[in-house]
């Protein structure tokens, strides 16, 4: 028997009614933030939920957590309807917002976590064990006694993660968890999440604008754009969807006219550096460059997921 | 000068966007005005004359007081300056070529101007519609009242400016300022007209700046002061305003020095 999916959305939609205009002549306008969303997330998956700003990501997140009721379709999270069973669902999921904290501003982190434990009714013994585990895994020991408002962004993020995981949730929802963090902190958090998923089979859904998060963590990507599902599959498939050509970056010894090399198209120049789009194989282009021009340096740039997405967004709009 | 005119206009414009808050404030002022007037009406029904006030004076006092609460900000809110001192953002303000006192004064006057027009006047109008308030007919009285109100607003600003800057020397000013925002009005005529308090107490309270923000302008409105007393009273108001503003200027230069020398 197949396990209950962690998330199951079917024809999920959400409309907003906007009333605008002067007091006596108000007009109503219906905006569809999200519609026709169909996707299933199995337990233990790590899924990235991507999309440009205003695409409907936070609307979806709000519906998943029960803060917002859908206007169309079906949604089940951990087998429950979020809008109907908000409290029951809340006890089994953990949520982290990158932009604001779920901790109490004036309390030391330790006290915040103790309060959280009571909110989620975690038994004392379980809490102690779990807290030790999380302190070790997230390296919290140095600032457990610091008031949350005095923590750095990276420390606060780790604190928020600890608070979200204290009750061992089945699903972890992360809304921009690495935003504003330095690369060391980001790496630490990514490693932690991979570990968590491996050991506890926690399903993770994350939205992010940092595409290296996606590349490091997620095997599956769901792309939402203008309120509808644009892509649902793995990363390689995403590359295939909007193939972006590779770029040859040539650093000449002195500024020159745009180079005309076989199998390339000149994109732009900046001083002695030129960007050439590869339309054919790279080898002849590189050979021709080396043979006929004074080269200081040469790089072959692979399209990253940013390029893929940028093309995708441009193509769809 | 053009700078401060712009700051003034900005303050005015900013407050004009707080439409819901202004309407709510108007409602609050009217509700409390009616409740306080109700109590005083009952009182003056039992004792028609107390220390020169009669029933009409008392209810007019209540509504002029409610009208003055917002522009003088005698019960708060504190200036945003206090928060900037707490967070340290004040350092950038002190590095600007404009004098902080003048800057914040211009901004606050914009706020006061807006509230006088859109909250004070409607509050009094509401009271006048519901109760038989006393309206001055003599243009000289209106002129005196306008002056007294302007001076009251200045005193109100100067006090809040000092409260805000106190954060440079006191670790956390919130306790102290909330105490002052509470006690001050009690001594000023907001709680009850000062004429109702026993003479020695009332006389002491009248010497304080808060009474110059409420009780004195109200008495001017009611025509309780004849010219020699009137001029003396206005002069006392002006003296308080000048003294508090001067103290504010002194505090500003001390604070600036503190920032430069200690790094804030």
């Amino acid at each position, binding site marked *: 028997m197949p396990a209950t999916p962690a998330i199951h959305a079917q024809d999920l939609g959400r409309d907003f009614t906007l009333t605008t205009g002067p007091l006596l002549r108000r007009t109503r306008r219906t905006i569809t933030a999200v519609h026709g969303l169909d996707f299933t997330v199995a337990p233990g998956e790590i899924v990235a939920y991507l999309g440009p700003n205003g695409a409907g990501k936070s609307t979806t997140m*709000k519906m998943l957590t029960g803060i917002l009721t859908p206007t169309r379709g079906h949604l089940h999270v951990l087998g429950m309807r979020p809008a109907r069973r908000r409290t029951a669902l809340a006890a089994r999921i953990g949520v982290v917002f990158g932009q604001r904290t*779920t901790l109490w501003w*004036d309390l030391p982190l330790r006290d915040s976590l103790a309060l959280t434990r009571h909110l*989620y009714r975690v038994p004392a013994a379980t809490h102690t064990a779990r807290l030790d585990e999380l302190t070790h895994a997230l390296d919290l020991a140095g600032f457990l006694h610091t008031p949350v408002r005095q923590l750095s962004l990276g420390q606060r993020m780790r604190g928020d993660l600890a608070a979200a995981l204290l009750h061992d949730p089945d699903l972890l929802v992360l809304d921009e968890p690495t935003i504003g963090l330095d690369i060391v902190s980001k790496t630490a958090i990514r490693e932690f999440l991979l570990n968590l998923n491996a050991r506890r089979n926690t399903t993770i859904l994350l939205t992010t604008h940092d595409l290296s998060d996606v590349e490091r963590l997620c095997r599956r990507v769901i792309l939402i754009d203008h309120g509808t599902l644009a892509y649902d599959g793995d990363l390689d498939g995403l590359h295939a969807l909007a193939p972006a050509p590779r770029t040859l970056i040539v650093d000449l010894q002195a500024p020159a006219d745009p180079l005309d090399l076989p199998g390339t198209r000149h994109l732009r120049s900046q001083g002695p550096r030129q960007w050439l789009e590869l339309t054919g194989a790279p080898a002849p282009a590189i050979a021709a460059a080396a043979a006929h021009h004074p080269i200081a340096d040469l790089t072959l740039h692979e399209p990253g997921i940013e390029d893929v997405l940028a093309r995708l967004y441009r193509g769809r709009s | 000068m053009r700078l401060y005119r712009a700051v003034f206009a900005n303050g005015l414009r900013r407050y004009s966007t707080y439409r819901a808050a202004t309407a709510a404030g108007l409602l*609050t002022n009217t509700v409390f005005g009616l409740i306080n007037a109700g109590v005083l009406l009952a009182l003056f029904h039992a004792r028609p004359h107390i220390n020169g006030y009669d029933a009409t004076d008392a209810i007019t006092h209540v509504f002029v007081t409610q009208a003055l609460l917002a522009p003088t900000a005698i019960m708060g809110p504190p200036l945003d300056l206090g928060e900037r001192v707490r967070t340290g953002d004040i350092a950038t303000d002190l590095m600007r070529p404009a004098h902080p006192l003048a800057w914040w004064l211009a901004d606050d006057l914009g706020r006061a101007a807006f509230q006088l027009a859109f909250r004070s006047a409607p509050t009094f109008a509401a009271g006048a519609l519901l109760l038989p308030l006393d309206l001055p007919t003599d243009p000289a009285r209106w002129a005196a009242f306008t002056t007294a109100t302007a001076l009251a607003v200045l005193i109100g600003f100067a006090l809040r400016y000092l409260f805000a800057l106190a954060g440079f020397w006191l670790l956390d000013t919130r306790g102290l300022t*909330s105490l002052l925002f509470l*006690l001050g009005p009690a001594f000023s005529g907001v709680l009850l007209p000062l004429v109702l308090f026993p003479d020695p107490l009332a006389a002491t309270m009248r010497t304080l700046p808060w009474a110059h923000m409420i009780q004195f302008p109200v008495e001017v409105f009611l025509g309780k002061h004849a010219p020699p007393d009137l001029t003396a009273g206005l002069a006392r108001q002006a003296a308080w305003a000048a003294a508090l503003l001067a103290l504010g200027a002194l505090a500003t230069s001390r604070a600036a020095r503190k920032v430069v020398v200690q790094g804030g």
Partner: protein
Amino acid sequence: MAQYPLSLALLGLAQSLSVIVELIAVLVVFGHAHTLAGFTAREALLVYGLAGTAFGLADLLIGQVERLGDHIRTGTFDTMLIRPASPLVQLAADEFSPRRLGKVIPALACLTWALATAGIDWTLQRALTVPLLLASGAAICCATWILGACLQFFITEARQAANSITYGGKALTEYPLAVFGTDTARWATFALPLAFVSWQPALYLLDRPDPTGLPDQLRHTAPAAALLLCALAALAWRTGLRHYRSTGS
């Protein structure tokens, strides 16, 4: 806040002083009038003590609910909805501080003194009813606070307007209701039952006929009025919350 004990003490003191200052105002008024609406100063202090204690308790327990609009605006209300606990309880508990006892203590002291000196004809029944009356009064004040907060589900900036009802109600109930006239007394009995916070209980304890002419039986219905208003408040909260979750503000 907890980091600055002096500030905390001063804030607590400010709360106490606000109660004491209003108490002084009542005394000053009665100092001139001797009786108002048939009530002497001692009897007026009974009214004040009942109202002050009821409101002080409600402020302690539920007062923070009035900041709902701020929480919605900054997104922290959503944070509360993520947790498996009642958002109302979380709201009330947010920034819970013992300094708010500063409002209850002087009011309770005033009430105790008035109970002793206002010339009440004590029976066992009367003595046992006092806690019930206080609890009903506090419940009515709590319900009023919640009703005011629910306004903010629909209009986020309605806090000040809501305050004019909660704090205005407090000011109203601190004086014998008959002082404000028969019409006001009727509104405060049947529209928003604030009369049951201090006025009806005082009439009961002093065994006084109602100067506004309402039936004497009303004074026994304080608990019923409290239950009714609380039910209304609960309904309003559920409606407001449902509205918030279906419009996404």
